[in-house]
């Protein structure tokens, strides 16, 4: 199993590598086009600001590669948001994998949402052995609007898409690598997905 974490200078990649290491799987961090293209599983992480992250992706041509990947891809946090149509953050166009938009929470709640919140309406094998209302760790100021491709929701100000799925593409707003045993289970499920 070759897992590649797309390394485009966005955030805490070490934690994801360590999370796979705890599962006994080596995950390589790389921005190499061919290495990514030939991986069995791809993690598209991201922490930071959307427009500068998108600029970095474009520099290495990864904005073109990601949407045409055929193997299971998991976007995490900003990675998932960048796989949507567009985000309000820096008025950035996304990769358009998921048919939804990303908006900012209003100031009726504390922004960023930081901490453990529950997930519900779980669909697909990504959530095998994960119970409804499980807690996951989230840190974000922007959220994806619920749509047909929503496979899990979280409530904060409103119900939003905390996980998305289309074909071989998955996205989660929470950080499985930091979400204790439930997060570990999700990463294991992602590895177990049959192509």
């Amino acid at each position, binding site marked *: 199993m070759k897992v590649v974490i797309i390394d485009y200078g966005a*955030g*805490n990649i*070490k*934690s994801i590598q*360590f*999370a796979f*290491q*705890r599962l006994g799987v080596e995950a390589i961090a790389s921005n190499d086009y061919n290495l990514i293209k030939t991986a069995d599983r791809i993690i598209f992480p991201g*922490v*930071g*600001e959307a427009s500068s992250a998108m600029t970095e992706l474009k520099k290495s041509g990864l904005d073109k590669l990601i949407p045409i990947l055929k193997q299971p891809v998991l976007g995490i946090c900003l990675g998932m948001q960048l796989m949507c149509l567009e985000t309000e953050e820096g008025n950035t166009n996304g990769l358009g994998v998921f048919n939804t938009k990303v908006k900012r929470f209003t*100031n009726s709640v*504390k*922004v*960023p*949402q*930081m*901490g*453990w*919140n*529950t997930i519900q309406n779980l669909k697909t094998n990504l959530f095998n052995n994960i119970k409804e209302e499980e*807690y996951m*760790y989230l*840190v*974000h*100021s922007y959220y994806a609007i619920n749509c047909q491709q929503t496979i899990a929701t979280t*409530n*904060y100000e409103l119900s939003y898409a905390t996980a998305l799925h289309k074909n071989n593409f998955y996205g989660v707003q929470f*950080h499985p*690598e*930091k*979400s*204790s*045993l439930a*997060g*570990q289970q999700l990463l294991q499920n992602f590895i177990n997905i049959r192509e």
Partner: protein
Amino acid sequence: MLAKRIIPCLDVKNGRTVKGINFIDLRDAGDPVELAKQYAELGADELVFLDISATIEGRKTMRNMVMRVAEQINIPFTVGGGISSVEDVAILLKSGADKVSVNSSAVKNPNLINELSNKFGSQCIVVAIDAKKVNNEWVVHLAGGTVPTKLNLFEWAKEVEQRGAGEILFTSMNHDGTKSGFANDALSKFSQLVNIPIIASGGAGTKQHFVETFKDGNADAALAASVFHFGEIDIIDLKKELKKNKIAVRL
């Protein structure tokens, strides 16, 4: 619902935890990594490591420790103490820290908060504020509460939010070490003033104190050291008590 967080704080000097710790059967209670693992398993939502080393060697050891902690634990953790530059933060985040906290360096150079949040994003920048009530005014202090500044606590809190802090860790030096409860008056004022999460620190002695700081102080998280380290409060018991009081917790 977003859960209120319980955060044990570990003081680390030259890569070793200090303060006596006797709550569990550890092979090595001075090893921050082993302690962190235990806390993660015992229900902590997050951890804070405070580096109190005073030497360059000590700081290097800290980076190494951060890497080993990230390797072992599956909950988020913050590293603070002696951080004063973009380079310091880059190294810690690269080593696997989720957040960093800055304190006196931000008071001395407030622009550091802007630089850090622009470079790394607000979500990983915690500003720690130590304050003491002097003549009925909350004044920001440095060096563990010994050196007063000219800053008013609430004005400073507002400013750090505007400069891009993602979270505030507020320690009341009047309450710290007293085990008489958190500074809930100041905390509830905070929650009206700023719109970023607030971690309450200083004064934890009983489970009821945590209930009060979440209900009366409106804190988003509560941090404590000795009550956890000495086994006076078990985190799972504490969370059950909070749940009984209708406070959302991850159990």
